[in-house]
């Protein structure tokens, strides 16, 4: 028995060792990519063109790289939220709605009165805080339903997602809410662009490489969530409630409090993801602006199997895949459907790889 052993079994954290756990996922992604390329060839698109478009869209230019990283941040935040709630054996599938309400709240605050004139970065911090609170409330709603009446959080967070997405539609359709003033019949159903001061500052100040402060913020949150889960009493309580709610209750751990805090935390991170998308990149609230990010973030959380570095890895993968996919579509005329198929393939092979690793490690 070594202290290292103890630490591992106590923390349930990720283990960094040179085991198949590293190369099997890489092989899985390579396999999925190969199948994807075969499919692209089968529909008559030039494979080299497609690859070139993909590379251009991911790392081909500073701009593309920045866009990929910004996307990864959004996935990662939703993924961290998923992992947090999942530690208490809760499955938060409501990332999409939490992004939507976060975006709505951020836009509303950014466009409100003199928020844009506030000093010390409050101009963009306040909208972010609003998004965090909105997302937390959206998550807490599902938690309260679960605690009070036993509603399964998979159902409630999913249904709340639809409500959030349609709430967004309503906000951008109704001039009484966030739709910009209709000056002509051609006015699009979207909000005004948020003022410059409320947009997230870029890290380098270079518009050719528009990585915004969401990246360091996401890394900071990764650290906070990681420490919270591994080092604090709250993390232990989450785990106890997740593994055995009855025994946790007998030991004096409040189930209601733990569930509400866990889902509110997951929602808060979803809301923040919405704020990053809106304040950092889109600047204008449009219908469907969350465009599946909540679900991709959920998949990143699932694939990570509870590990924060795992979420980061999966989010980077998804961030690059989405950027590259969009470019393949635009430049190489690969149909959207096929891009989605390839992404699905990668998810399935990765999940299969995880299963394989687990069996392999159990055998040794």
């Amino acid at each position, binding site marked *: *028995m070594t202290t290292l052993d*103890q630490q591992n*079994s*106590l923390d349930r954290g990720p283990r960094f060792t040179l085991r198949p756990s590293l190369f099997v996922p890489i092989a899985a992604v390579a396999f999925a990519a190969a199948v994807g390329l075969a499919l692209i060839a089968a529909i008559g698109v030039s494979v080299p063109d497609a690859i070139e478009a993909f590379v251009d869209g991911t790392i081909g230019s500073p701009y593309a790289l920045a866009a990929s990283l910004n996307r990864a941040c959004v996935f990662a935040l939703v993924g961290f939220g998923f992992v947090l709630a999942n530690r208490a054996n809760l499955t938060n599938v409501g990332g999409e709605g939490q992004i939507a309400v976060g975006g709505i709240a951020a836009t509303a605050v950014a466009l409100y009165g003199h928020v844009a004139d506030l000093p010390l970065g409050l101009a963009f911090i306040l909208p972010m805080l609003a998004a965090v609170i909105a997302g937390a409330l959206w998550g807490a709603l599902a938690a309260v339903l679960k605690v009070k009446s036993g509603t399964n959080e998979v159902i409630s967070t999913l249904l709340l997602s639809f409500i959030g997405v349609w709430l967004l539609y309503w906000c951008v359709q109704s001039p009484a809410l966030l739709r910009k003033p209709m000056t002509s019949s051609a006015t699009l159903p979207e909000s005004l662009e948020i003022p410059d001061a409320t947009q997230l500052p870029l890290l380098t100040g270079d518009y050719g490489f528009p990585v915004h402060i969401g990246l360091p913020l996401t890394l900071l949150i990764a650290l906070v969530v990681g420490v919270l889960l591994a*080092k604090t009493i709250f993390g232990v309580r989450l785990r*106890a409630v997740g593994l055995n709610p009855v*025994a946790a209750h007998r*030991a*004096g751990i409040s189930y209601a409090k733990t569930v509400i805090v866990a889902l509110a935390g997951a929602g808060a991170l979803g809301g923040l993801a919405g704020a990053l998308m809106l304040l950092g990149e889109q600047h204008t609230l449009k219908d469907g602006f969350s465009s599946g990010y909540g679900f991709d973030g959920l998949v990143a959380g699932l694939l990570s199997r509870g590990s924060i570095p795992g979420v980061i890895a999966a989010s980077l993968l998804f961030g690059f895949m989405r950027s590259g996919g969009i470019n393949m579509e635009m430049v190489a005329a690969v149909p959207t459907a096929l891009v989605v198929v390839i992404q699905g393939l990668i998810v399935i092979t990765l999940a299969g790889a995880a299963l394989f690793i687990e069996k392999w490690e159990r055998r040794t």
Partner: protein
Amino acid sequence: MISTSPAAGASAPLLSLSAVTKRFGSFTALSEVSLDLRPGEVHCILGENGAGKSTLCNVMFGVHKPDGGAMSYRGAAYQPSGPADALAQGIAMVHQHFSLVGDMSVVDNVLLGRGRGVLNRKECARQLAKLATDYGLPLDPNAKIDDLSVGERQRVEIVKCLIRDPQLFVLDEPTAVLLPDEIAALLQVCRRVAASGRAVVLVTHKLAEIKEVADRVTVLRGGRTVATSDAPARDIDALVRAMIHGDVAELDGTAASTLGLGKVEHVGHQPPPRGKVEALQIDGLTVKDRQGVTRLDNFTLTVDRGEIVGVAGVEGNGQSELAAVLAGMMTPTSGRYYLGEADLTGRSPKEITAAGVGIVSEDRHAVGCVLGMSLAENIYLNRLDEFTRFGFLNRTALQRDATTLMRRFDVRARGPGASFSSLSGGNQQKAVLAREITLPNLSCLVASQPTRGLDVGAVAAVYGHIREACGRGIAVLLVSSELDELLSVADRIVVLYRGRIMGTCPADPARKAEIGAMMAGQAQ
């Protein structure tokens, strides 16, 4: 009882195992076990918990595939593809846990998985009647399972097997849930089934049963065959030594009583002087379930400081409800529960723990611990706050204190960081006991079935700690279905039957028959 069966001699074995090995991961559950089962014999498999008895049965019944060795059945190689295959070949098994549909009748349960097309209930009922007379298994074919007693339910399981006319009949710890009378009846059934020329395998850890019914005995310890006997009644002491790897004379009296070994002796401590402050006072607790059925009926009892009161009864007679109410896991329909002056009725588990009541839950895995967490975390699960500063858990202090408790309570594990699920049942229970008994202001301990599934050594340790706590002036309420253990360790015994107290009497082994009758619902 001396065997009268014709089998004990030399007839060809029905099923023979040679050097059968079964591993689960790195754990070897069975190691080169060889065994012959002959027609007409009752063959007992004896061993402590975790000795590999159930695994052995499951290998015979095709649930597990052996990793090594060979089996032959009626002279031919036997490699069952699964339980269905084993059944088809004539090997039937009654599992520890029943698999009956509560809402269906006896006939329908027997027909489950057997009927094809139109059910022939009449024919089945006729067969049941024949089995009833042949083997002494009376059953009302139209009774609903939910209305039957545990003993009757087990009869249904047995009939389900016998109706298939098996050649080999395996019973895995069938007596654990039965009343004394029912046990005697079951052993009679075993004898009759064997007398009809079949082989019966009876798994048990109770020596009294072996003395009464076994033709031959195989003793397992740590997955190995450590002893066999063709004359169990004569060799009983040697068999015990083999099973527990120690000497019978060294056994703690209470532990010996769990084996049904010899006479039950009262080894309890000095009875406390009466008239001291009562610690636990239960006043008219009544629990009704959702259907409005009364599960616990006007339960009134006081337990003094330094006194151990045993609650006896066949499981399912209100003990679970009583313990759940005392633990704060269930709200009673009426009645109150006090600790000293404090009214604890309907308080949360957290408040009850804070008031100084330690709880050992009957279902360790469901209520008592979190299997996926570490030993240290489980030992301090209800006191984690003491190891916290600014929300951060001080794992060093947690592990250090847990290590101290592990030593004091002899909890054997790889270390305080070991996963709780990696501990044996006995060590898990010692850890739970350590947690509850070391509450800083403990004044009362409620322990439900604290020795269930434990081996002899662990039983002795558990009762040692309970007695020690009692000696410090803790009031102990001990709920157990093991009457012999209660007789040995308690000061007083109250008997629960259908949620009511049937009677109270001193824990005097001489009054065992009287208590047994009360457990069966006969007022004295």
